[in-house]
């Protein structure tokens, strides 16, 4: 996330579970890039793979989607 923020010329807020993603410093395009890069690394895009696509609001939600997606 740090790297993407840097690439997009943004600065990142400290990551805590209750951090609202839209306040993190990355915008939607930044998150789209993050999801694509993670899929490149992990081989999975849990948002697209999952039937009930819930939109993550906080950083904790975001991490949970990946934890659940890994099962």
């Amino acid at each position: 996330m740090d790297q993407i923020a840097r690439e997009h010329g943004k600065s990142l807020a400290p990551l805590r579970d209750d951090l609202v993603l839209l306040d993190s410093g990355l915008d939607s395009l930044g998150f789209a890039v993050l999801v694509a890069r993670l899929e490149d690394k992990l081989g999975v895009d849990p948002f697209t793979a999952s039937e009930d696509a819930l939109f993550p609001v906080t950083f904790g939600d975001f991490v949970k989607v990946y934890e659940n997606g890994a099962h």
Partner: protein
Amino acid sequence: MAHTEAQSLRHYIASEERFFFDRHTRARFTDLAGGTSLGGRLEELTGKSVLVATGSQLATALALIELDGIARRFTILPPDADPEHFAAIVTGADVDAVVVDQNSTASAAFDLPIRVACAAEIAAAGRLPAPTRQTEGVMLTSGTTGVPKMVVHTLAGLTAAFRGRPVVDDTVWGTFYDIRRYGGLQIFLRAVLGGVSLILSSAGEPIGEHLDRLGRHGVTHLLGTPTHWRRALMSPAILRISPRYVRLSGEIADQAILDSLHGAFPQAVVSHAYASTEAGVAFEVRDGFAGFPAEFVDRVRDGVEMKVAQDSLRIRSPRAASRYLSADAPLADQDGFVDTGDMVELRGDRYVFAGRRGGIINIGGLKVHPEEVEAVINRHPQVRMSLVRSKASPITGSVVVADVVLKDAVLKSSADAAMNELGRVKGDILKLCRDALPRQKVPAAIRIVASLDVAATGKLARRYG
């Protein structure tokens, strides 16, 4: 009052108090019945070709109501217009006057004989000229590289999808989608003709604040692109609104976003509309599913006729634009059908969208031509060829990804060294793209591949999108 004939916008102004809201301003647009936001300078603008280049959407909204029926033509400058194209726009639309406001970043760029300031405060006016003529409305497309095409509409065509339909009295419209684009302009016109208030966004306004305002003003009907809606659903402030009509347009809506919106607003009708600047609004789908029923095709519905030819959707419609202002190519074919360039596939009894002809990628409403990105990647000395394509993204609908074939030398070193080398080359390519391209065009991921498919024509084999 239900009008079935299109009159000028000023005729529709109701007697009740109705407002345009943005982050800073509340403009009682019903005051325009006997007032002006243009300093009462309508006499000067009579019969002129006027460029509306305000910084705020709200100022554009007020200016359009005043100019309609007075000016010969108004051209709406979209917020993301490239200053390099300003001269071509002025020439193409034969512009002789410009309307600006205090927020116009473009303001200084236009050196025109008549320059009118638009104020958000509506001043009482003496005698204003009566709106008598049919004003041409010109919108700019976002689908091309280079100078945008200028598309000519009439008020009758722009309002045909909803004119004369009854409007529930407590309706309050809101839009995430800028009214200086076709989809957003539809909502501005629906609000004015329906005699209801409209909540607009301001440049740079955080989504949370915008949602908060929408909630405070009691929005009942709300438009956004799928990307706008995905961003809204990621905000905790989504809980502040409870619209009863949720509309998506401007991009293809996928099943995930429709399901998420149904989940977030179980009481609301969730509708995705298909429209283009050229073809106008073609249809609206309210059954909750992506794509559209096959029965929409090969018949006339609501005056609009659709067919599929060579896999692309074609539309013949009284809501379509009448012509391009400057381009040589005609807007429609000999039979009056506009080729949308949107490719569709029949699956069972439903058509689904399969991307754009030529692989054009839509990132949150901004179009990306793969060739433009490939040209930048191919500048890298170690790149033999590249293919830029779209990849589905849960956040923005799609992202740009690149498949790259490298010249042999890189891969011939030892495994570990090759991995490091590949990482470095990928990083180099990304940097090259970031330096040369706006951010939505920079690939989100780069994949090094051994080869790319080349079609019989000798061109790269592209899927639709």
